[in-house]
Every structure is written in C-alpha cells, then in structure tokens.
C-alpha cells in the first residue's frame, strides 16, 4: 500500500494529466466572456490603448496568460525536459507523460487558433 492515501493525489494528478485542456477551457471562457461583455457596450468596446482596440488587446493578454501558466505547470513537474526529473513520479511513466504533453500540444493549437487567428482576421464587435 502506498503511504499516502491515493485519493489525495488523484485530483492533482488528474488535473496535471488534463492541464493542457484545462488551460484551453480557461482561455475559452475568458475571451468569450470578455468579448460578450464589451461588445454589448459599444462605448467600452470603442476604447483603445496605444492605437490598439481594447477588445483585441485584452484577448491578446488573455491568450498569453494561460499559455504561460501551462508552461509553468509543466516545467514545475519536469515534463518539459527529457529524461529524469524531480517532478511527480507517476509522470515519468510514458502513459502519463505522453498524455499530458499531448493534451498540452492540442491545447496550444486550439488556444492559438481561437486567440490569435480570431483577432488577426476578424474585426471586433462587428
């Protein structure tokens, strides 16, 4: 039997496994809520900072944050370096390692698609 009751590490372990998708979900919720809130108020949506509209600017900031957080979480658990690490022992096993990194990769693509392509190609609140 393990010394720690397993349910205590189940939630953090499972969350780490899914961290890429969680980052995506947080990003999606943030930019959707932000756009909905601002586009409902034309006065706010028209504001700009340094010539960049407040809507695309906010989305850009909200895109960087979850990606940075994801990178930090993965690095902290030693998943961004090959070979040995000081992170969660479970995540040295190929299954956990590969699924975590795969989730991060798909999450990254989805975040870039919705956070970068959108503000590059689509006018705000139109």
């Amino acid at each position: 039997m393990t010394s720690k009751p397993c349910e205590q590490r189940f939630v953090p372990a499972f969350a780490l496994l899914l961290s890429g998708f969680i980052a995506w979900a947080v990003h999606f919720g943030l930019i959707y809520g932000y756009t909905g809130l601002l586009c409902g108020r034309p006065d706010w949506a028209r504001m700009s900072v340094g010539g960049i509209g407040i809507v695309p600017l906010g989305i850009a900031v909200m895109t960087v944050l979850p990606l940075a957080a994801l990178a930090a979480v993965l690095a902290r658990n030693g998943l961004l370096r090959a070979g040995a690490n000081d992170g969660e022992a479970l995540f040295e096993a190929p299954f956990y390692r590969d699924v975590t990194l795969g989730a991060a990769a798909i999450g990254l693509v989805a975040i870039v698609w919705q956070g970068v392509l959108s503000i590059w190609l689509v006018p705000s609140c139109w």
Partner: protein
Amino acid sequence: MRPAVYPPKELPNVSPRPAGELEALERIWRAPRGIHFLTVVNNNYIGVFYIATALLFFILAGILAMIMRTQLAVPNNNLISPSLYNQLFTMHGTIMMFLFAVPAVEAASVYLLPNMQAARDLPFPRLSAFAFWAYLIGGTVFFCSLFVGLAPDGGWFMYPPLTSFKFSPADNADFWLLGIGFIEISAIAGAIEIIVGVLRTRAPGQGLDKLPVYSWAMLVFAGMIIFAFPAIIIATYLLELERAFQWPFFISEQGGNPLLWQHLFWFFGHPEVYIIFLPAAGMVSMILPAMVQAPLVGYRLVVLAVVGTGFLSFGLWVHHMFATGIPRLSLSFFSAASMAVAIPSGIQVFAWIATIASGKLRLHTPALFILGFLFIFTLGGLTGVMVALVPFDFQVHDTYFVVAHFHYVLIGGMVFPLFAAFYYWIPTASKRPLSERLGRWVFWLMFLGVNVTFFPMHITGLMGMPRRVYTYPEFLNWGSLNLISTVGAYMVAAGVLIFLIDLVRNFRFTSTDDAGNVWNSGTLEWLPAGTYQTRSMPYVTSREPLWDQKGLAEDVEAGRWYLPGAQTGGREALVTSPIEARPQYILQIPGPGWPHVLGAVFTAAFFLLLTVKLVIPALVCGVLAVVFVLLWMWDTDPEPKPDVEIGGGLTLPTYMSGPSSHSWWAMVVLMLVAGTSFACLVFSYLFLWTTRPEQFPPPGITVPELGWPAICALMYVASAGLVVIAGRQLRTVPRSGVGSWRLQLLLLSGAPLLVCAGLVDLYSQWGAGLRPAASSYGATVYAVMAFQIFFIATVTIMALFTLAKSLVGRINGIRRATFDNTMLFWLYTAGQGIVGLALTHLFPRLIGAGP
C-alpha cells in the same frame, strides 16, 4: 496468516476451493423470482433490460421517422396534418436523443463496465435500477402523449418564445419540459454511478494506463454529463417557471432574452453529440482489436483523443447559433474550437486504420459495422468541419444539409458502433450468438440505406430546402431527391427488422451459461462469469489480459485469484484506488429491494401528474417518492463487519468512510452537478444583465439594505460551523454506543438556521418590492432564491434522516458515511447560499444600482 504481497508474485488463493464457497456465491447473487423479480438489481439484469428499453425507443422513434419520410416522399403530400408532422419531428428528435441515444450508451455501460473491470457489480446497483425504472416509466408515458395529441411540437430544441405560454398555451410543451427534465435526472444518476464505477471498482492492477479504452470513454462521457446536463436542467427549470408563473426569462418586452435559452440549450446540446459518440468510439476501440486479433495501436493517443474530445466539445455550442446575430469575433472562437475538435477525431480514425493494418481483419458482422462506421462517420465529420466555417454555415444552417450532416455523424458515430456492439457482445449475455448470415443482410441494408437516405439530403439542403417543413412545392424540384431519401429510409427499416428477427431467433438471455469467448477477445468481459460476474478477481498486468496472461480464465474460474467467494456473507465488491487500482476495501453492496423501485414509480408519477396539472395527486406521489427513497437509504451504510482476507495475505476492511469511500466520491460528483447547475443560473443572471443592463434592476426597484444579506450570510456561516463541530464531535462516539445527544442537538439547531437564511432573504427581496413576474431581473433573483430554498429543503430532510439514524444507533465514530454525506451537502448548500447573496445583493451595487 501469510504476509501481504502486493503486487502478487504468485496466485493469491489455492484450489480446490472450500466446499460450498461457489454455491454460497451463487445463492447470494441469485435474482429473486416471481413478482419479486421486479426488485432485481444486478447489472447483468438491469443492463440488459435497460438496453432492451433503449432499443424499443429506437424502434418507436424510427417508426415516427418512417411516417415523416413517407409524408415527404412527394411534394404537396397530404398524408398527415401539419400539426401531427410537427409533433412527429419533435418526438423523433427528442426520443432519439433523450430516450434512445443517451440511455442506450449508459445502459450498455451498466452491463459492460463491471464485466470489463472484473467487478462484481457497479458500486450503487440500486441507483442503476432506480434510473432504469424511472426511465422506463417516464419514457413510456412521454411517448404515449403522442396518442392523445399532447406530444410536444416545438422541436427537440424547444426555442422560446414559440414554446412559452403565449404561443404554446397547451400542455404539449410541459410534457417536454417535465418529461425530459426528469429523464435528465435519471441520466445524471447513471453518470455518478459510472464515474465511481470506473474509478473505484476495477480489477486489481488495472491502473489508468491499463484501463480499457471503453472505460476511459465512459469516464469522459459521465464527466461530460456532469457538466453539460445541468445546463438543460436549468433551462427547463426557467422555461417551466415562465410557462407556469409568467416569470419573464425569455420575454424581451420584460427584459428577458430568447437567446438565453439557446445558450443554455446548446451548452448542453453540443456536448450531447459527443456524449453519444464517445462511448460508441470506445466500443469500436474494444471490438476492432478483437476482430484483428491484435492490440489497439496508439492506446495513449486514443485516450488523449477521448479526453480531448470531452473538453473541446464544450467550446462549440454557439456554432448552432451562428445565424442569430452574435458578434463575428465571438463566432470565430467557436469556429476555431469546432475545427480543434476535429483533431481528436482524426487521431481516433487513424488509430483504427493503424489497428486494421496491424493484423488480419476478420470480416465478421461486428467488423462490417465498424467499417461502415468509418465510412459514414468520416463523411459526417468532414461535413462537420464545413458547417464550422461561419460563411458556409450561413447558407446551410437549418437546411437538409445539416440534417444529412448530423444523421451521418449520429448514425455513423453511434448507431453503427452500437450494432457492432450488439453482434459482438451478445454472446456474453445469450446462450447463442446472433446469426452471421442475417447479420450481413442487416449490415448491407443499413449501410446502403443510410447512404441512400442521407447523401441526397446534402444536395436537397443546398438546393434550398429548410428543415422541419411538413411539405414542399413541386416547382422547386426537390421531389426526386426526397423520394430517393424515402426509399433509403425503408431500406434501413428493413435492416432493423431483420435484426429484430435475428434477436428473436437467437437471443436467449442468460447470466450464467453464455456462449463464451466466441471471438477470442483479450479483455476481461470475456472471462467465464456467473451472475456474480467472475469467480475471482485477477491482478491485471496488461490491457488484453486474456491474451497476455496465460491460463487466466482457468485460474479466475477456479477461484485462485482475489475474493473467490462472498467473504462477508453478502453481496460485495472490491473497491480499488483510482489511479493504480490497488485493493482498498470491501464494499458491502445492497441486493434486491422494493423501495428503489417504488421510489422510481412515484418519482415518475410526480413529474407526469404535474405535467397534466393534477397538483394534489402529484404532491402525494412526490411525498411518497421521498419516503421510499429514504426507506431505500435507510438500509444503505451497513454495519461494518470484521476485516476479511481476499487472498495472498491481503486483508481489507469491510467499511470505509471519509474521502477514501465510494460514497464520499459520489457525493462530491453530485456536488459538481449542483455547482454546475448553480453556475448556469449565475450565467443566466449575468447574461440577461449584459444584454439589458438598464433592466438590472429595472427602474423603480431598489436592492434591499445591506443588513439583510449580512444576516443571512451569518446564518449560513453559523450553520456550516455547527455541522463541522458535529462532525468533530462524532469522532468520539464509540462504535457500540447508541446515538450521541450532542450530535443530535447540533443537527437540530443547524438546520433551522439554513431555513431562516433562505426565508429571510426571500422576505428582504419581497419587502423591497421585487416581484418575479414583473421583470427579468426579478425573475432571475427569485429563480436563484427558489433554487437555494430547494437545496435547503433537501438538507433539512437529510439532517432529519441523519438524526433518525443517530437516534437508533446507526451512526457512530466509525459508521459515519451517512453523516459525512449530509455534512458535505450541507456545507455546499451554505456556500451556494453565500454566493447567491453576493450575486443578488452585492453585484447590483457593484454595477451602480445601490440605494
């Protein structure tokens, strides 16, 4: 006693087993006979009944489709009236989604999961049975509304204002709202069962990295239900409040917004498609390796895909609303997510192709259905990418192109795998497998039929034919394409008919004497089994143990693995740890009984009587339902027995409370459901505020003085404090003791505080002049309060129930799961109350509406 060695180095038990061990196991798990057969709870029985009922609804909804296809076969047809046609398409969609697809995959997992994980049963067998009975009764009555002309006719998507009291004054829409609301509860009950079942009742050693893909799929499926279904429950709650009491959530003249419904509906509705698809994809990943006689290629990638689909499918809901006039930037997020969800599907399709290449595919009927699935589903997926393109969707949205698209996805993605599953797994439940010869007929008729029916619809849609029309004029030349579609539909029907003939000829139900491992499959459901499932529980070192662990089937059947008998003398299951599946404790599971059956009957009666506005009988049935559920609960949380050895020196406790116990896990999942529901209410409030800020609050309405919410919040905190103290106090209550008066006193004083908090808040809003029927602001504030009061009432009943158990000495420092559950739900309710106060009192001040 031998020292415990785990993981085992040798077989943990010796054979021959003691005389009478197997007989005792058989006696304990035997199904009751005669009229008492209705009280049966074992997953082998409930699973099969459940699947059979789902199949019945598939056929019924299919018949409705045939009537519609006949009506549309020629232009200007008068076969059925517009009103009947509208009821038919509403019922066809609703039944296929709510009474066939979701229950069918849930039913299949009730049957399959314990088998695949070598568990004796699911952890809450009576809950499965309750969900089944509620579904059977509720679904049947719902269908019969068609015969009295009261079937809902607002489309399966039920958009208000068309479905609200003004434009649909009759009871038809209520049948949908209450009937479906109630079936959703049944689905959530099943989802809780599945999550705890997948994570906690597995074969020893069956860690997350060795979990069958199907179990992964069901875990994600259940997780999605937990987060998606609350949205539709809240939507139906709000629309029913609007219909019954004129609370204007969706009425724009009073500050409401019809789009609120669409957001809530599709936040459920889009994940729903993947909720249906994932279990079927999981089945494919199980069947294909058996047909190829080689393991699935890319297990990790497939698991990644299954989980990824679960997440990304929550970012698609607005792609059903592209044409509603939402800002284009917002649409682009949903367009991007709709593209992203194609990646996991791509991974799975290529993993299946790779698996086919890794061996020799034996073209038995299940394999044919899987090839058919690949063909149809790929086409449906490609058109899915098309409709994710905003400009393209502007043309094809709500046309027959979309009808074609989603029938390709749903029939390809769900019905074909399900038929593969019937042909593949029936030998585990029947003395004879189904006929290969008839199976080929079934496959070809269905495969050609589906393509002949739905491929032309792409063109019909592009040629301008909208959905949900009972007829069309001749001069638009849609006639020939529609006729082809109708012919195809009859081909599918013929295929299904032959399948039924095959079932009648060859299906002979058994839980003990099945046809055996006819496909030479590698997974645990093909172990020899009785009603008690496998004789003993193997330690698993592979994903295909029957291929990789020599002699496994014989050892399991001879009882040489863990838990070869009924060690506690009753029905029991082995609970394992969630990641690595180490044995943790023996769960004493309940057997047959009447209370859950009657509880389901009266729950169904409550909702259905309410639908037809027989309020008094409905309330009587509601009270009876609560009484029977409490009777059922009275027997749960059994007396702890002495520890038992399951083999190999492994000695396990027979009772567990606290965060390791299955009941704690189930309560946490239930709290997630509750939290998501509440979040949907908060979203509704904020959504109405964003779209109509000047209405929050409407002119002339002031928010109550801050003292009111402060008092309520204090009461919530105090009552939460009391229950926590009660929990501490309970630790000191000895096992043999009768009830603890301190615990009882704390419970008795804590519950009224909650009730007061709820009522004081209600009083303060009413006193400030706010009325629910006057404005959307008032309606949402009262909806939040009513929701909270429902929770408070539930906690009160739970507290009284716990008190009663304590009074008869059924709760003590060890045996405390009942108290723990009450405490968790209590703390949750207090927390929800405080968030609700912040939303309804502080938020309006924050946006500048303070007095």
